């Protein structure tokens, strides 16, 4: 996210027009602010500048100053005299300075681009029908936009290895590589795992891993994303689907509390890949490889697809009915989940209130890699705090629930997605308890449950998560869920309505948000779902600043950071 | 009128003849369908049905392929197809009338031929008696009466189908039938006037009388061309043939009254239509084309024996077949009338024309029949 705040603005002359741009900004980005494009391959706004592709050549000049006095030299009409650099310069290697003049459309620039394109394509194979990059390939785009349209190269093209294994998830097609070195810089600078480099010279020059190493870190697939051509390909997505068939949905990665912004690509209800979405306040342009593989759980074998009542397949109506019967007039416990969306946690909290239930919440914790995989392996722990589902920081083990069960105080237990057995609650303790399990996948608890209501994964529903930096981020439904299933909010709203006997609660996300935003003490006050869908909203988390959050310092995150001013 | 043995014998004979005639008319109807398909094909530069053949006939050299090319066995295949097609009855129909309608349509078509003379039989003395199932004194009226019942088949089919297009077909058809029956009846009155001899006890309503009046003299077609024209046009209308294809009109009513009919029920309608044509052609031949008699003003060249009988019948059939061809010919030449045009033609053209024709002939016959110049 390019900050358009109150940083210093300078005026530059872009193709004869004076425009305001932030001082010191890279020229490629600055020009993009004003609707013009400087084509580039090796430049990436979040990586260091290498300047080796030469695609971004432009004409540039600065106001001339007298060497002696340092005063500006003026033309006869009083305007400053511009000292044009006699040769084209690379845009990515230039930062804006006051009074700078830039030509992005001159004859020389056009000629440069045509020449560069022709050279880049000299050994590039005509692979587009096979290439997975086709459709989102910079080489294709710039060849049509800036290329000369034909090649004068009559000799045979070089033939290189087509599938070199760089790592477990990345395959290199050597022929297509234009040696931009983005992947190398990413590995060094972002992933901090310096394994890639160029070897050999001239047309033999090749990207390769250092001897005895491979590109195996948890961020390796980002190299595939930033590769401007089809050289680096995801072994998982390779040859699976052409990108122009894919429908892209804005989503949030549910892997950890980092809350990476993602694009979920699907075709006809089947997810084919997940890619990061640029959000400079949260995840830049990166995400973890493990987060990308999460879509596989949608079609996994242990997915719950039909409601079960007493281990028998049943209908949604019957399941809801049995649930209401099990709740009415019983002492009830509710085990919430940090994997649920804010809306679900809010409704679950209300349901707990209506059923006069005791609330429990379990956390999932792991190692923090300091980048985008945080120690809190749930996407929405802070949502549970905000909605009031949890008042204290959740723990890995539900010992308080075990104690309550030991005292035999609970008759019915609503469990949302969590496995109690896994959380040090003995199966014996659960024997006398009616368990209502709402979840997406089978586990030990769902096998014990009297009623199982299958719910949807985060790819199959809309909602919002609050990440580790108290960023409220909404996401959209990418694919339809299994036939006959209801979104979790609908299930919860139905249960609340049945329990209260009033038809008040709506399962519509916008009306849930209206309810949530009504509370004057909540940080969600005055917000609506459409507000949080695009870039996310920074919430005021100071109320919980004292809690012992497990996350360590990482990309765009400071532990116990005081929220910034709006 | 006790049922004695002689009567039974006679009844048996009549039944046999009736059966023979029904099968003859049905066969002719079946082959009219083939003729329709063949003639239409030829007129449109096509070949027409030329595939169906019985297995053993196929192998007869020369004749087999010729018959196959002519499509001689097509009516057989069509009939079988109608029989073995899936019997579909739509859920929304009025079942009783739905099943009844095809029968009601077919029965009148077959009944009319009972009073139709198609030849003459000579006894040993050389006296002729007509070949006819029932020699009614009022034969022509009988034909009118029975054929007027034929409309019920179409009306019932249209109504019981309980669907829009058939209903429109039924309505149109009933209106058309009523309209053209009048002109048809009026067109025949001059015939009766012309044929009946003053003072004779014989009724001129007898078809045999009409046929015999044309023996060795002018055909009524020549004497009364206007009547013949009106009768022919009305006949087209009564048989629902193009250009008076109101009840069917597949272009705007998707088949009209038989839209909801399939398999054999539709087959019956289909055969009934062609039976109407066959019988209609025979009637026209009888009244206007001299029946089994040879050419106008020429005495029958055949001997007064059974050979003469056969030749007479053959001649009669030849004329009928020519008329059937004319029916088909007209169908593939003239486009269909619009409903209002049909009504207009019936009521404002044909009916007045028939009336004028009648008056003219009344005057003419009165003048001709004046006592000094009594026609023999």
């Amino acid at each position: 996210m390019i900050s358009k705040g109150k940083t210093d603005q300078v005026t530059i002359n872009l193709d004869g027009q004076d425009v305001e741009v932030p001082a010191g900004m890279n020229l490629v980005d600055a020009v993009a602010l004003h609707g013009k494009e400087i084509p580039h391959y090796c430049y990436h706004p979040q990586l260091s500048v290498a300047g080796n592709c030469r695609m971004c050549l432009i004409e540039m000049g600065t106001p001339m100053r007298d060497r002696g006095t340092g005063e500006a030299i003026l033309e006869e009409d009083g305007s400053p005299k511009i000292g044009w650099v006699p040769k084209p310069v690379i845009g990515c290697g230039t930062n804006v300075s006051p009074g700078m003049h830039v030509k992005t459309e001159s004859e020389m620039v056009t000629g440069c681009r045509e020449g560069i394109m022709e050279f880049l394509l000299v050994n590039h194979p005509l692979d587009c029908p096979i290439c997975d990059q086709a459709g989102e390939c910079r080489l294709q785009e710039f060849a049509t936009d800036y290329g000369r349209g034909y090649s004068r190269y009559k000799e045979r093209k070089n033939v290189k290895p087509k599938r070199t294994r760089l790592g477990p998830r990345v395959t290199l097609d050597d022929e297509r590589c234009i040696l931009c070195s983005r992947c190398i810089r990413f590995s060094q600078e972002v992933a901090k795992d310096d394994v890639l480099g160029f070897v050999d010279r001239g047309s033999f020059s090749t990207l390769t891993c250092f001897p005895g190493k491979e590109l195996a870190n948890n961020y390796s697939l980002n190299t595939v994303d930033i590769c401007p051509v089809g050289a680096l390909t995801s072994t998982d997505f390779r040859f699976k689907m052409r990108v122009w068939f894919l429908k892209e949905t804005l989503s949030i990665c549910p892997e950890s509390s980092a809350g990476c912004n993602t694009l979920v690509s699907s075709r006809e209800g089947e997810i084919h890949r997940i890619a990061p979405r640029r959000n400079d306040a949260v995840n830049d342009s990166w995400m973890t490889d493990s987060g990308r593989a999460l879509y596989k759980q949608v079609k996994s074998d242990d997915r719950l697809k039909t409601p079960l009542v007493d281990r028998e397949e049943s209908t949604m109506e019957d399941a809801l009915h049995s649930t209401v019967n099990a709740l009415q007039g019983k002492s009830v416990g509710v085990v919430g989940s940090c994997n649920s969306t804010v809306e679900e946690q809010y409704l679950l909290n209300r349901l707990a209130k209506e059923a006069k239930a005791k609330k429990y919440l379990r956390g999932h914790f792991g190692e923090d890699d300091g980048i985008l995989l945080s120690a809190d392996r749930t996407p929405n722990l802070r949502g549970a705090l905000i909605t009031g589902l949890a008042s204290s920081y959740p723990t890995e083990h539900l010992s308080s629930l075990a104690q309550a069960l030991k005292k035999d105080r609970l008759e019915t237990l609503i469990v949302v997605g969590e496995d109690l057995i896994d959380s040090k609650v003995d199966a014996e303790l659960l024997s006398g308890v009616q368990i209502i399990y709402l979840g997406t996948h089978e586990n030990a608890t769902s096998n014990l449950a009297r009623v199982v209501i299958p719910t949807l994964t985060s790819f199959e529903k809309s909602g919002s998560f609050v990440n580790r930096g108290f960023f409220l981020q909404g996401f959209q439904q990418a694919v339809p869920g299994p036939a006959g299933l209801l979104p979790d909010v609908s299930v919860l709203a139905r249960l609340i309505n049945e329990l209260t006997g009033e038809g008040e609660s709506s399962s519509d996300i916008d009306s849930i948000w209206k309810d949530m935003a009504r509370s004057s003490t909540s940080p969600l006050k005055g917000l609506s779902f459409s507000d949080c869908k695009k870039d996310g909203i920074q919430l005021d988390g100071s109320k919980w600043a004292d809690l012992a959050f497990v996350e360590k310092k990482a990309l765009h995150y400071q532990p116990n950071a005081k929220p910034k001013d709006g | 009128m006790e049922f004695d043995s002689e009567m039974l014998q006679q009844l048996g004979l009549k039944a046999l003849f009736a059966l023979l005639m029904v099968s003859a008319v049905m066969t002719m109807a079946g082959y009219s369908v083939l003729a329709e398909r063949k003639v239409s094909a030829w007129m449109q530069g096509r070949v027409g049905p030329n595939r169906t053949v019985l297995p053993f006939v196929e192998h007869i050299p020369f004749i087999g392929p010729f018959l196959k090319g002519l499509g001689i066995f097509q009516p057989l295949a069509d009939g079988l197809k109608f029989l073995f097609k899936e019997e579909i009855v739509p859920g929304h129909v009025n079942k009783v009338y739905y099943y009844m309608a095809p029968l009601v349509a077919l029965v009148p078509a077959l009944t009319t031929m009972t009073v139709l003379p198609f030849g003459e039989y000579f006894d040993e003395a050389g006296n002729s008696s007509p070949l006819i199932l029932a020699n009614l004194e009022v034969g022509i009226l009988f034909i009118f009466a029975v054929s007027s019942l034929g409309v019920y088949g179409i009306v019932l089919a249209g109504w019981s189908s309980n669907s829009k297009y058939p209903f429109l077909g039924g309505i149109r058809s009933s209106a058309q039938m009523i309209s053209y029956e009048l002109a048809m009846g009026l067109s025949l009155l001059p015939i009766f006037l012309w044929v009946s001899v003053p003072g004779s006890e014989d009724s001129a309503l007898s078809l045999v009388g009409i046929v015999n009046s044309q023996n060795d003299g002018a055909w009524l077609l020549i004497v009364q061309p206007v009547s013949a024209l009106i009768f022919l046009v009305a006949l087209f209308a009564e048989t629902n043939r193009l250009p008076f294809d109101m009840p069917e009109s597949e272009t705007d009513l998707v088949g009209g009254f038989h839209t909801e009919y399939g398999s054999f029920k539709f087959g019956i309608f289909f055969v009934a239509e062609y039976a109407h044509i066959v019988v209609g052609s025979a009637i026209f031949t009888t009244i206007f084309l001299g029946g089994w008699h040879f050419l106008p003003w020429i005495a029958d060249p055949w001997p007064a024996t059974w050979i003469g009988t056969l030749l007479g019948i053959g001649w009669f059939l030849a004329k009928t077949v020519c008329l059937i061809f004319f029916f088909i010919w007209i169908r593939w030449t003239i486009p269909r009338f619009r409903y209002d045009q049909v009504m207009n033609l019936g009521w404002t053209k044909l009916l007045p024309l028939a009336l004028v024709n009648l008056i003219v002939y009344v005057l003419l016959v009165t003048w001709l029949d004046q006592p000094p110049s009594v026609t023999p």
Partner: protein
Amino acid sequence: MAKTVVLERKPLSLSERTYLPQIVTGLKTTFSNMFKEKVTLQYPEEKPQLPQNYRGVPTLVKDPNGREKCVSCQLCEFVCPPKAIRITPGSVPEDEEDREHVEKAPQEFEINMLRCIYCGYCQEVCPEEAIFLLDEYSSSGYTREEMINNKAKLYELGGTLPDKHYKWDKKKDAEEEGNAH
């Protein structure tokens, strides 16, 4: 502006108003047509002469060495107006030496002939010249499933076409020419 000429319509004469002469003329026309030469073709025995650019059933073809040309780029699937084409992409196993350099081939390739409108866009768009609308025009079946041509059927229909491009041999050629890296 063009000048509008109003043509006087001549009043019909009496004979014209009876329509009878016209009907007789029509009858003459139809009758004379009965004896003209027939224009129909006796189809199963006589086959029509297909023009060179006839567009029949879409098929997949192989190169002169009998190798699959399609690389499942799915452009035909994309361009197909009635969405008759369905491709499941797949990769060519690395150990298949003969086809090593192409990597990609359709796992399954289905053309639903109940949907196909024979527009020829697939042939037009194919970058590998692997799909052709050849002269096969008689396509029939008893079930809907039968009318979906799968990959085997498509190759059976298409056969092998003479072709100048030997993309499979790129690697081999390069080794011979010395521009392999």
